[in-house]
């Protein structure tokens, strides 16, 4: 009863935000530049949250998230431009294709731990990128022309869907199993949790939403190129999760919003931006290795007077 009330509260809030921004866009209070920034922000939030489930919740360190973004982007672009099918179908299929790629990558690599897993995911992401680079059907190195189809509605509801699914997953029995893997994999194994299964599931869900973000990302520009999906893109996504707090969904959302602003304003100074990013990363790791929010959520701050009560 209580839970559903909270849920409807957030649903109404989301709709209000959506309606207000949509109104501002239609009345052209928000111009193209800021509208684009808002869509980019939504894409970044989706990416941050989808990586959060892999790194933050399950504790599996993946630095190849841009690979799944690329799969979603290219598959959806093929569906809309080559097969001439509608955009919502392209989003769905792009996400499904990324989830399948996630399964293919995850099943062999998730047996690895820590550093090895990181390097293996990096390797897979590079392989995915090189495959697109060498496929003439999708334009090779020159890139692929894509129609401009993304708009605020798709981007916003993508974010809502991503956050909804991932926060529900985290609070479910499966999510708790994933958290136990993050805390201590051997102990989780000993408690009878099928650790491989949950790691692969979390990885596939993360890839699914990265693919969803990829579909919207591809149709937000007129062209997609393999170079866009290199290691630096994975690093961009990683920094949202790390800065926000490893294990905090709202933290990664806040970091994604904040860093989108920063990178939009520093767009003309890419080197400065990268220097700032890397310095932030080092300083956060040296002085606050759990990230800004730790594993806390922003909603925890509003729960006053509930000490010792049931959750």
């Amino acid at each position, binding site marked *: 009863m209580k839970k559903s009330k909270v849920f409807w509260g957030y649903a109404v809030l989301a709709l209000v935000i959506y309606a207000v921004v949509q109104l501002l866009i239609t009345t052209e209070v928000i111009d193209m530049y800021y509208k684009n920034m808002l869509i980019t922000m939504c894409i970044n939030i989706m990416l941050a949250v989808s990586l959060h489930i892999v*790194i933050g919740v399950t504790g599996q*360190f993946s*630095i190849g998230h841009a690979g799944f973004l690329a799969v979603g982007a290219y598959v959806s672009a093929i569906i809309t431009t080559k097969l001439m099918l509608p955009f919502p179908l392209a989003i769905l299929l792009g996400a499904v294709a990324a989830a399948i790629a996630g399964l293919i990558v995850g099943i*062999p*690599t998730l*047996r*690895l731990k*820590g*550093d*090895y897993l*990181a*390097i*293996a995911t*990096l*390797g*897979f992401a*590079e*392989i995915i990128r*090189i*495959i697109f*680079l*060498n496929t003439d059907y999708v334009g090779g190195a020159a890139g692929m022309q894509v129609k401009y189809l993304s708009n605020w509605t798709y981007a916003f509801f993508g974010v809502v869907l991503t956050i909804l699914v991932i926060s529900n997953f985290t609070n479910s029995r499966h999510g708790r199993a994933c958290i136990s893997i993050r805390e201590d994999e*051997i102990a989780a194994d000993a408690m009878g949790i099928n650790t491989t299964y949950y790691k692969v599931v979390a990885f596939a869900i993360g890839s699914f939403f990265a693919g969803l973000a990829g579909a919207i990302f591809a149709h937000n520009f007129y062209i997609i190129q393999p170079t866009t999906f290199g*290691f630096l893109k994975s*690093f961009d996504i*990683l920094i949202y999760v*790390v800065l926000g707090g*490893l294990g905090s969904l709202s933290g990664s959302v806040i970091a994604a919003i904040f860093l989108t602003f920063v990178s939009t304003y520093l767009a003309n100074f890419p*080197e*400065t931006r*990268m*220097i700032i*990013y*890397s*310095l932030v*990363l*080092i300083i956060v*790791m*040296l002085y606050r*290795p759990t990230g800004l929010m730790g594993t806390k959520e922003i909603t925890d701050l509003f729960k006053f007077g509930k000490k010792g009560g049931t959750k």
Partner: protein
Amino acid sequence: MEWIQQLVNGISLGSIYALIALGYTMVYGIIKLINFAHGDVFMIGSFIGFYAIAKWELGFFPALLLAMVICAIFGVLIERIAYKRLRNATRIAALITAIGVSLLIEYTTIFFRGAQPAAYPEVFKNKSFDIFGVQISSTSILILSVAVVLMILLQFIVHKTKIGKAMRAVSHDADAARLMGINVDNTISATFAIGSALAGAAGVIFGVYYTKIDPLMGVIPGVKAFIAAVLGGIGIIPGAMVGGMLLGVVESLVSALGFSLWRDAAAFVILILILIFRPSGIFGKNAREKV
């Protein structure tokens, strides 16, 4: 004959990978950290060599030495400033810091000198020797001999000197080594210094061989050298040498077969295969995990 030609090219390339891989493997062996910034130390070494030869008109060997010394200092600085506090941190925190340091070095270099490539000056008249119909250039002989000399030197340091003994002890068990009176911090710094000096040397010979360098040149060789280290068995010094050579040869053969665009993918495929089927590498022993 073309195959042998490719083999020679592969060994030249492989010896560069091997030199970088040695630094990775030593650092990993001693503090279990993938030092992502190692590829960038390689880049810095290459640029120091470039300035030494082109601007200050030093010869090849003084430039090589200078690059090695400056890279050694640089490596120790990185370790002291960024990694030292992270000794007891989680592996993820250490890895993220290493990625951060790597990007910081790359983009600071770009910030100060721009991203445009530089052409390495010619230091040797490039003669080609004809041995049984195989063209072998003098530069590839030079690369190979420098690499082999450095590797022999490294083997000597690790196995015959006191600091080498300390390094082996710390990599075996840091706490026990500390109890035996070994200064663990200094030993780790020495490891970084030696590894970075090797990367600096690799940077200079890379510049001489490929004649084009740029601030992001360290990324791909860095990752490939890491693959070489994993291939040979990470933490094992002869493993890094063999892994590097093997990787160089495989890449050259893939190019020779006409798939030069797939060359990078080949390295990653090797990495993933080795991680899945033999994660301890060619020379590695299987270590049981204890709770």
